[in-house]
């Protein structure tokens, strides 16, 4: 008899591969312990689903192709309540359809990972092209007050690693976590080294132990309620309505609503130390900074190196976790630099929280590019050079 981990290794294949970002996402999910995937194929996210469809049946997991993305997200919530680690993947049009049940997952504290391999919108837009146009939808796409966790890796290797992190955060904090890449990174192939099990951490959701005292939404000291899966004999009521710690609807109570929704937000904002991820280049003596994320940040790294060769004190702040926005990190950079260049593959989205964090302490210059092509090193270098002469 093979153990589950052995089955996973066999299904993933050789340790070193040359694969796409989408493949790496599926691999990361499986390594993280994902055993359930529900989704609907959509370019450029289809390969995530394809890999999951191949691997999950071989490791005793379950892959379901649903009738649409609304149902996919619903299936995810149900499966997660059986105790499984769950994921779906989609692109812009599908992510729009998932918004209602994404909110349901937040309200019902259901761990799940939602991958968006972004393409240009609005609507069906440019299916085969990359974009980062859903960054703000990720933050506020579902209605009502809430916090969301969103991570943006920049290489095939990092897609695998960040997908594992996404599962760990989803489990630890009992909340949906979004992994956002784009069509370029999703379809780009690079060397991928599949890590050994002792090279990464695996986190399980906190479990309820005592049936008699179990109250399904009574939080622990870290504001996360211990979980009891359906079928385990614990009495659980789950609703998207405002509910008390027993899980029973109390939709007319201002006090219950205030307490619940503030706790759901605080359990995330109290754990920024677990969530916040970024990378800094030339932070120490940087005068002109680029703040970037996702695939764009790769180009920025080249640009900063070239700018340094030309005597410009350039640096790069690469954001990996986008939501909750790492305001304190950006603020710290704003204290030191004269200007920030913010290239985005949208018409300017993350530049807004950046401006809020900067609060007028330095120049913030957006550089928007849409249509599916990446920013070129030459145009970013030119923009960086122009910022040198910008009056503070």
């Amino acid at each position, binding site marked *: 008899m093979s153990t589950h981990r052995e089955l996973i290794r066999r299904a993933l294949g*050789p340790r*070193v*591969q*040359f694969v796409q970002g989408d493949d790496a996402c599926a691999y990361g999910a499986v390594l993280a312990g994902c055993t359930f995937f529900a989704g609907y194929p959509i370019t450029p996210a289809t390969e995530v689903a394809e890999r999951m469809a191949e691997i999950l049946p071989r490791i005793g997991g379950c892959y379901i192709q649903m009738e649409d993305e609304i149902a996919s997200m619903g299936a995810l919530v149900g499966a997660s309540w059986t105790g499984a680690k769950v994921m779906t993947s989609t692109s812009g049009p599908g992510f729009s359809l998932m918004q209602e049940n994404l909110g349901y997952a937040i309200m019902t504290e259901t761990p799940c990972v939602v991958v968006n391999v972004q393409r240009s919108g609005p609507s069906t837009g440019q299916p*085969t092209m990359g974009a980062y146009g859903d960054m703000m939808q990720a933050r506020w796409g579902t209605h009502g007050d809430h916090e969301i966790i969103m991570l943006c890796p920049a290489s095939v290797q990092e897609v695998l690693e960040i997908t594992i992190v996404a599962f760990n955060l989803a489990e630890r904090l009992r909340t949906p976590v979004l992994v956002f890449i784009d069509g*370029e990174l999703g*379809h*780009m*192939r*690079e*060397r991928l080294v599949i890590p050994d099990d002792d090279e990464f951490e695996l986190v399980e959701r906190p479990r309820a132990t005592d049936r008699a005292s179990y109250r399904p939404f009574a939080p622990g000291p870290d504001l996360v309620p211990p979980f009891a899966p359906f079928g385990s004999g614990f009495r659980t009521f789950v609703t998207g309505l405002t509910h008390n710690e027993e899980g029973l609807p109390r939709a007319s109570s201002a006090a219950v609503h205030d307490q619940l929704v503030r706790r759901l937000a605080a359990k995330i904002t109290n754990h920024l130390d677990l969530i916040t991820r970024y990378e800094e280049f030339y932070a120490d003596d940087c005068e002109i900074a680029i703040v970037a994320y996702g*695939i764009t940040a*790769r*180009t*920025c*790294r*080249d640009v900063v190196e070239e700018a340094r060769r030309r005597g410009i004190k350039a640096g790069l702040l690469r954001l990996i976790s986008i939501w909750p926005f790492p305001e304190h990190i950006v603020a710290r950079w704003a204290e030191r630099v004269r200007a920030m260049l913010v290239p985005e593959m949208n018409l300017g989205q993350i530049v807004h929280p950046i401006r809020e964090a900067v609060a007028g302490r330095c120049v913030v210059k957006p550089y928007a590019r849409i249509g599916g*092509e*990446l920013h*070129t*090193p*030459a145009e970013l270098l030119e923009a960086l050079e122009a910022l040198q002469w910008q009056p503070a």
Partner: protein
Amino acid sequence: MKREIRICGFGGQGVITAAVILGKAAAVHDGLTACQVQSYGPEARGGAARAEVIIADQPIGYPGIHLADVLVAMSQEAYNRYGRAIKPGAMVIIDPDLVFQHDEARPVTPVRATKIAEGLGNTVVANIVMLGAVAALTRVVSPEALLAATLESVPARFRELNRRALEAGMQVAGVPVLAQ
């Protein structure tokens, strides 16, 4: 070291497969860094397809190619569309039976990949013949790495055909045949 290689042709010729095998040879078998991207139209067959591979001995940032060091063109339409953005002195390899007109100012290396593949009994391996020639002419990956990457990328029953295609491509380029 950083070499930027663009392989183009019409959809269905296997230019993306060729680029993937080249990248795999470099990244998995030769211990180099490689990054491969592609673009294609909505058609399943026909239309101009393009795949790009960057092979380097350092991390690769920007994954696109502005001006290629090596251009491989397997159709006239693709040559016309993607053939211009190359570096001065770039190596241009064409299948002369499919690219009839090319920029006279740029020297080209003809490799009759489709014709050779036909001789091997199946034009489907024209891309692999071309790959053998590219590897031999550019030396960007080792022949052993390319053979390993090719064999693990094709179905078992086509391995022998692909091995012969690779060898034929290398021979055309004047490079000794692989050891058995």
